[in-house]
């Protein structure tokens, strides 16, 4: 800055250049000495302004302000410089490989995640989510679903019975833990006129002791579509669409004949093995395929049991085990991990 012509101010100006090399405490001392509110040199100079003759006031006042601004700028610049220096010094001493400070993070159960994904895909196909009771009567669990009494088809459904008075009436019978989510199909058909399009997640029960691939209680997810004009082609199309959305757009599928009392034609859908992609490996027993779900056209007898006109309406149904699909997806080797609550397991599959 050029000299102001006022000796008092120009004397101060001589100190301006020195600010750039002051350390922190000297800087603050100099700030107090020059700009301090109580006894700063420039503050003192400002106080003189009203005492000057009017014709001098203006010139001197302007000079004081200019000098003040120059000093303020210099102090600000030096402070910023010092702050930057000190930040650099501080960083130089820190080991940045030290661990971060985390928070606990929650997660849904891996089976829930899979159920949600499956449900979302079917919601996109016009399905709504339905649920039903886990304790059922024989009628809902078996008879309405066209299970022949005293037939080997029952062998697949090793049933847990509840110690309770049988439910009287046509739709009653002994009380049992439902062996599949299919009784909800019956409840949906009994309560809604077609079109019925429901996706049904829920617990199912079998009298199987725990082993790596069986649990006495496990999740199932069931689907049902009943309307006029629904055919085997719709069944295939819906499930192929599902498989592509869930496993990947290029996933191949195949449908094999099978047997379930409540569907006919019945089928099982395989998807290409997620491990070997069809070339064959121990996980798929060398076939290149993995069994994912059972399905079929709703048996006319089931529709009739639900007072649905089986000549007018047709439908399809399917069911799958999300726990099994979870195991396939993540390579979990033992279903018991799903039900023991080990924090390390639950936290690792989010």
């Amino acid at each position, binding site marked *: 800055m050029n000299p102001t012509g006022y000796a008092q101010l120009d004397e101060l100006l001589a100190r301006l250049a020195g600010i750039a090399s002051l350390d922190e405490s000297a800087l603050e001392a100099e700030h107090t000495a020059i700009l301090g509110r109580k006894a700063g040199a420039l503050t003192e100079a400002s106080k003189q302004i009203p005492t000057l003759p009017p014709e001098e006031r203006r010139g001197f006042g302007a000079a004081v302000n200019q000098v003040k601004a120059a000093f303020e700028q210099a102090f600000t610049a030096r402070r910023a410089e010092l702050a930057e220096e000190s930040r650099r010094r501080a960083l130089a001493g820190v080991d940045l490989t*030290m*661990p971060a*400070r*985390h*928070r606990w*993070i*929650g*997660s849904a*159960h891996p089976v*829930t995640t899979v159920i949600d994904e499956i449900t979302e895909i079917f919601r996109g*196909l*016009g399905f*709504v*989510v*339905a*649920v039903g009771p*886990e*304790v059922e009567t024989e009628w809902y669990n078996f008879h309405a679903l066209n299970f022949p*009494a*005293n037939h*080997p088809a029952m*062998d*697949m459904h090793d049933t*847990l*019975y*509840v*110690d*309770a008075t049988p439910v009287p009436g046509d739709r009653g019978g002994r*009380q049992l833990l439902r062996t599949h989510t299919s009784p909800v199909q019956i409840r949906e058909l009994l309560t*809604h006129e077609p*079109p019925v*399009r429901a996706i049904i997640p829920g617990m199912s*029960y079998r009298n199987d*002791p725990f082993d790596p691939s069986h649990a*006495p209680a496990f999740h199932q997810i069931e689907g049902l*579509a009943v309307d006029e004009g629904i*055919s*085997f*082609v*719709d069944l*295939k*199309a819906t499930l192929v669409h599902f498989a592509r959305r869930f496993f990947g757009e290029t996933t191949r599928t*195949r*449908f*094999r*004949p099978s*047997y379930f009392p409540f569907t*006919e*034609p*019945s089928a099982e859908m395989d998807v290409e093995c997620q491990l070997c992609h069809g070339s064959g490996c121990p996980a798929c*027993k060398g*076939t290149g395929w993995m069994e994912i779900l059972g399905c079929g*056209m709703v*048996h*006319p007898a089931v529709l009739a049991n639900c007072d649905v006109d089986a000549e007018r309406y047709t439908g399809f149904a399917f069911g799958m085990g999300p726990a099994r699909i979870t195991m396939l997806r993540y390579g979990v080797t033992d279903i018991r991990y799903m*039900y023991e*609550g*080990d*924090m390390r397991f*639950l936290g690792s599959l989010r």
Partner: protein
Amino acid sequence: MNVSRRWLEAFLRRPLDARDVANRLAMLGAPVDAIEPLHADLAAIRVALVEEVRPHPNADRLRVCTVNDGSAERLNVVCGAANVTAGKKYPFAPVGSTVPGRPPKKPALTLDRRKIRGEVSEGMLCSLEELGFEPQDDGIWELETDAAPGTPLLEALPLADDRLVVDVTANRPDLLGHKGIARELAASYGVPFRLPVLPGAVDIDVPPSRRIAESEGAGQSGTVTGGVRVSIEDTEGCARFHAAVIRDVRVAPSPGWLVQRLEAAGVRSINNIVDATNYVMLEFAQPMHAYDMARLHGPAVIARRGRRGEKVVTLDGVERAVTEEMTVIADERGAIGIGGVMGGSGTEVHEGTTDVFLECAWFEPGRIRRTRSALGLSTDASYRFERGVDLWNAAEPFRRCIELVLTLAGGTNVDAPADLWPRVTHPPRIFLRLPRVAQVLGVELPLHTVEKHLVAIGATVVSKPDDGRIAVDVPGWRPDLVAEIDLIEEVARREGYDEFPSDLRRFRTGNVPDAPIVAASERVRDRLIAEGLLEAMTLPMVPVSGEGIRLLNPVSEEHGMLRHRLLPGLVRQVELNWSRRVRDVRLFEIGAVFAPGSAGELPQETPRIAAVVSGSRAPEHWTGAAPDFDQWDLKAIFESAVEVAAPGGTIEPDGEGWVVRGPDGRAIGSAGSLAADAPPWAGTVFGFELELHAGPRPPVRFVPRPPTPSSERDVTLLVPDGIAAGALAQVLSGGGVTVLESVRIVNAYRGDRVPDGTRSVTFRLTFRAADRTLEAAEIDSAEAHLLLLLERETGVRRREQ
């Protein structure tokens, strides 16, 4: 069902690839669980001719043989078997090869060139047992083969086979025999199939069976064949009974081909008679039984109901009590076998048997299922009968069985076999409509295609009436075909499921909303995940204790009851984590709990949410450990859960924890510390459990937030014990000061600096007006008003400094 590839080849008269067969069967609805190669471990074994046998110079029991193994040189082989004979052929294991043996009794052995008592031995002449077969005598295995020395044993004899383990569904009893499988494959390959020729079968003349209908008025049927009086008294349990007597048989071991075939199907060879019955069962899916006629009292064979107190010792040596609900086979003295399940040991065919009585019957499936289930005795026979054997074509397997017995054991069929069939029936006729086929399958198939598929399964298309229906007589071996839809499935199956298109067509969406509980569960799940908790799943079956819903047939005592609370299951999971030295546990579960319903009603199922936390409040960090979870953490999570799971619920202190009440005042959940089996290093377990309200979510409204600045005043009150801070906060909030935005508690102190029986609590009052910046004087007067109000209503005053 274990299926032999070779047996199928004999049906189809062509070589088959096991993998290809498995693939075709899978696509026809009979997936193959496993393909087990049989005797592949004998690949190195060759047919060898023993040209000379000399005594061993240093051992009495050993011989030295000159062996022609097909190569130019002759080998020196030391052999210990007494039956080794010059000029005969034996299986030969060359140096370097391994024989499988039958571990553990006969371990596998790898051969090297070595001296045995001074004589060089270059390989081994093998016994059956050394090659993995059932031993029949002590000697080496004398081969009856024309194969030249050096021929691989697996080429010279039909030993190499694949066992296909076929998963047959409960509706397809016809696939429980090789013929049924061959029928499916024949149609798949487009080739004919015929019964295999029985090796060594001579021209046998078995007279046709004599059909015996209902005896007059008796509802029963009876006759005499070969000197045995045969009758059906229980025509409900036994609809048809073929009987024959064969005299002068020689019971002996079965020939190799039969042993191999049975073995490939997983059945052990017993003797030629029993093997003949098993062979026919494995071929036709029709169980057979043979009796030692000399041990039949009467001699008579009667199919009747069991009698109270009657007992039979079955073939497995177990004495079994029969009931009137069972069909038994009896002679004049009493029951000698359990019909369709297992024969009795008293009339078993044995080495000394000379005359046999053969049975080929049809037992009612439901009766067999109840019987085997009551006896806890499932057999190859009961398995087939309860699924349904062919009532109408039983003559063919029976004739096959007679021929096989005569071929294997000689003897004579002295009398025409009897066919007791009191009430003759026919397989059902089903009408099939082509438009219905198109309606169900979504594709219009021409009549000739439908017909072709039905013929392929053995059905007869009887007529083509003008009304668009075709009449189909189904084959007797398909008891599953009873209605039109069953034929539609057959058409689709034979057409090939993969042949149908799979492009999405128009559909109508479901016409009801999601079940409300679904959205409610999702909301509370999301909330607890946001609180840092992990979702767990526990089994709804819990150990039996106290009142509750018990299971009649639990998997175990540990799973004997339905849960009526979720928390105990979660606490067990906390303990499991502790047992694995995992200290920090944060789990929640959403699931149903069960309470008994009224008599004759289903239980009440209530959806609930529960959570547990224990251990550190945050992950460890080197700057300093986080404190453990405490009750205030629990209260926060609990409030958070109540907000979404039970909107409108009010939380109140209750003992050392909290209870939440619904709008109707009913307690719907609680929170507090929980008892657990804790190791010394574990933290306290805190948890809550709460009913999950499935109703619609209360509406959320936008509230404008004023941009004006707020002012805060901290007010420290001296609060005597017995006065709840929450109550004071309520007085302050409800004090009618409109510019009071919030009341928060920011500090609490109890100790020397306040009088006994009191504590100090600091409330932070936040003031704000939407339309202006508040002046200090206005806030001062509001604060003074609130303090006055507080003193008047509760007696609580400001703490003097």
